[in-house]
């Protein structure tokens, strides 16, 4: 700070020390946060399905399976949250996942006998590197070449998948060291599957990174007002490249986990993964317009469609209806976000759906009368 301000500030520091809100207000603030509301929504879904089929749904093994199915998506979700917070988007994650798995598998197969932890670690590093490469490419094209993120990542979505098919002639590779499959793919620690542990670690890392570090703060700032960031000397291009690189790296990690779990590079698969993850991010409360978002929200947002699908299969609902309901949640989440953004930008106190629908018209009439 300027010397004048600093001296004035230090005089006041003793006065303004630790101004904390009372506990009640802090708890109230917590419950009003979007993330908490999403958790309540998820709990409501759990309660409804538990009531409809307690035996099958409300079961530790069932929840463990839901968690496993969300794990890989959650890792992708961390990176995607960062990208969407900057106001960008990533459609390439599924293909980068596949490509990284292919590279990892090829590397591991060619090393020695293809078994053991040394091979596994080299393979993991190879996969991470290939994911990082695609992330850097995405970031460079978005930040420096100024190509819109949707177009860039649509291009890399096709390119990464195409390269995977070139490298493998379209046939899935299945080489993965047994240690990797057994410990990462299907291992568990104290009953918690390894996949879930790894995903949880990545999610916690993501939460800390976004909420508590300069990198995370600047990510939000760039998404909120990139021009303002440039004016205060933040290298916006470099920040964007780092964000996309992070997402690419995580997609590489997801590729390894995918290979370990399925013992296959699943080239034909993951074509809808990008939309599933983006839906999870949006349902979790992160705005597609950037500036605000939480990794925790993304995690819960991913749990909701996964839990819905699980419950619907258990109840025997036709697959087509499942898609309709998950889609309805997505639209609902975006609507809630729109409402919140409108309320924030106008300082309005009227935010309930009822008043937005029914009072909107009458306010227009009033304006016409006055003019």
């Amino acid at each position, binding site marked *: 700070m300027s010397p004048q301000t600093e001296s004035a500030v230090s005089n006041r520091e003793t006065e303004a020390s630790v101004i904390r809100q009372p506990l009640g207000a802090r708890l109230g603030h917590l419950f009003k946060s*979007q993330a908490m509301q999403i958790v309540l929504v998820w709990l409501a879904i759990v309660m409804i399905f538990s009531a409809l*089929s307690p035996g099958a749904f409300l079961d530790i093994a069932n929840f463990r399976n839901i968690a496993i199915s969300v794990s*890989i998506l959650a890792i992708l979700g961390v990176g995607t949250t960062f990208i969407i917070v900057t106001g960008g988007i990533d459609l390439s994650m599924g293909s980068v996942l596949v490509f990284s798995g292919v590279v990892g598998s090829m590397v591991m197969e060619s090393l020695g006998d293809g078994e053991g932890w040394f091979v596994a670690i080299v393979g993991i590093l190879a996969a991470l590197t290939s994911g990082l490469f695609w992330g850097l490419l995405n970031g460079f094209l978005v930040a420096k070449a100024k190509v819109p993120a949707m177009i860039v990542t649509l291009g890399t979505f096709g390119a990464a998948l195409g390269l995977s098919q070139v490298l493998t002639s379209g046939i899935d590779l299945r080489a993965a060291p047994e240690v990797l499959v057994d410990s990462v793919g299907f291992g568990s620690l104290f009953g918690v599957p390894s996949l879930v542990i790894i995903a949880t670690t990545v999610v916690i890392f993501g939460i800390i990174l976004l909420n508590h570090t300069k990198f995370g703060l600047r990510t939000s700032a760039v998404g909120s007002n990139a021009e303002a960031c440039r004016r205060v000397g933040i290298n916006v291009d470099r920040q964007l490249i780092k964000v996309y690189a992070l997402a690419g790296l995580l997609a590489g990690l997801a590729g390894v986990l995918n290979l370990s779990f399925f013992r296959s590079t699943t080239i034909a698969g993951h074509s809808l993964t990008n939309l599933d993850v983006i839906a999870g991010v949006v349902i979790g409360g992160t705005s597609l317009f950037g500036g605000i978002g939480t990794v925790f929200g993304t995690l819960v947002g991913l749990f909701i469609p996964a839990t819905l699908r699980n419950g619907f299969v258990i109840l025997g609902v036709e697959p087509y209806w499942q898609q309709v309901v998950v889609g309805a949640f997505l639209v609902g989440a975006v609507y809630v976000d729109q409402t919140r953004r409108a309320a924030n930008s106008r300082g309005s106190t009227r935010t309930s759906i009822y008043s937005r629908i029914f009072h909107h018209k009458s306010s227009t009439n009033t304006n016409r009368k006055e003019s």
Partner: protein
Amino acid sequence: MRHATTIKVASVVAAMAFTLAACSSSSESESTAPATEAASTAEATASANKELSVAFIQGVIGDNFYISMECGVRAAAQEIGGVNVSVQGGQKWDPALQQPIVTSVMATSPDAILIAPNDITALQRPLEEAAKESKVVLVDTTVEDPSFAVSQIASDNVGGGAAAFEAIKKMVPEGGQVLVIDNQPGISTSDARVEGFEGAVGADPSFEYVGVQYAKNEPAKAAEIVTSTLQRYPDLKAIFATNIFSAEGAATGIKQAGVAGDVRVVGFDAGPAQVEALEDGTVQALIAQQPYQIGYQGVMQAVASLRGESTESTIQTGFTIVTKDNLATEEGQAALYASTC
């Protein structure tokens, strides 16, 4: 209040979910809430009097082949009596989509699971796991080590591929260049069809095989393959399209290139779009599998196993060659794939 909005929206959607669930549960067969029934059914040993639950996991939803298979499943269930059928499947052919469906189905502890696995290794462990509680029958596609399964039921795809060549030979007796359009390599069923075709065409010197191209279940890609192949091989006489989307696309490609009538197409599978192509002459023959039979046999094998009766570990179903000539006959009509059951 902002959280009021969210709670309201969520309640509406949750209410929708509840209603849909209740509706589809009651629209199933005469039994009551399937899940609670299934849970208790799994504990008891299967006997002729107990109601049996069969879960059918399709390879992909919205595909006439698997819908016909569903019809066969339901018919067998109806015939046996006391068998409750539930059908699930992924939006796309994707092991990452199918695996959570398998684990969700496992939560209901069905007596039997019929499944067309999306990948030979990806579904290996999940199905081995499922086989501990339920009888598993593999339909259409298989896995690396199917020893946990009660039975594997699929078309004799090698024979089917050879039959496709026979159909071409009948239509183009003088010989010529032939192309194969496949889905993608690595899928056991279509690989076998290509193998059968290649074996048959290789044995016949009057035909030149210009190779196999992959359309990845996308009709648009198949059309593009046809138009570009015609550029390179203008004397192309016939195309063998190994599955429904490839055949659709091949027909489109031929129309686009304006060579309808000069280039013969033999398709594998007989969905409504292909039958239409057969009717208006773009496709000249269809090698129809018997998915209805596969589904029917699947249930039969599962129930036999549950009742402690003997089972067959491998069943190969046949095929029907459908042309414009026999389309109107009863045999021809029965060979076509269903759109609803």
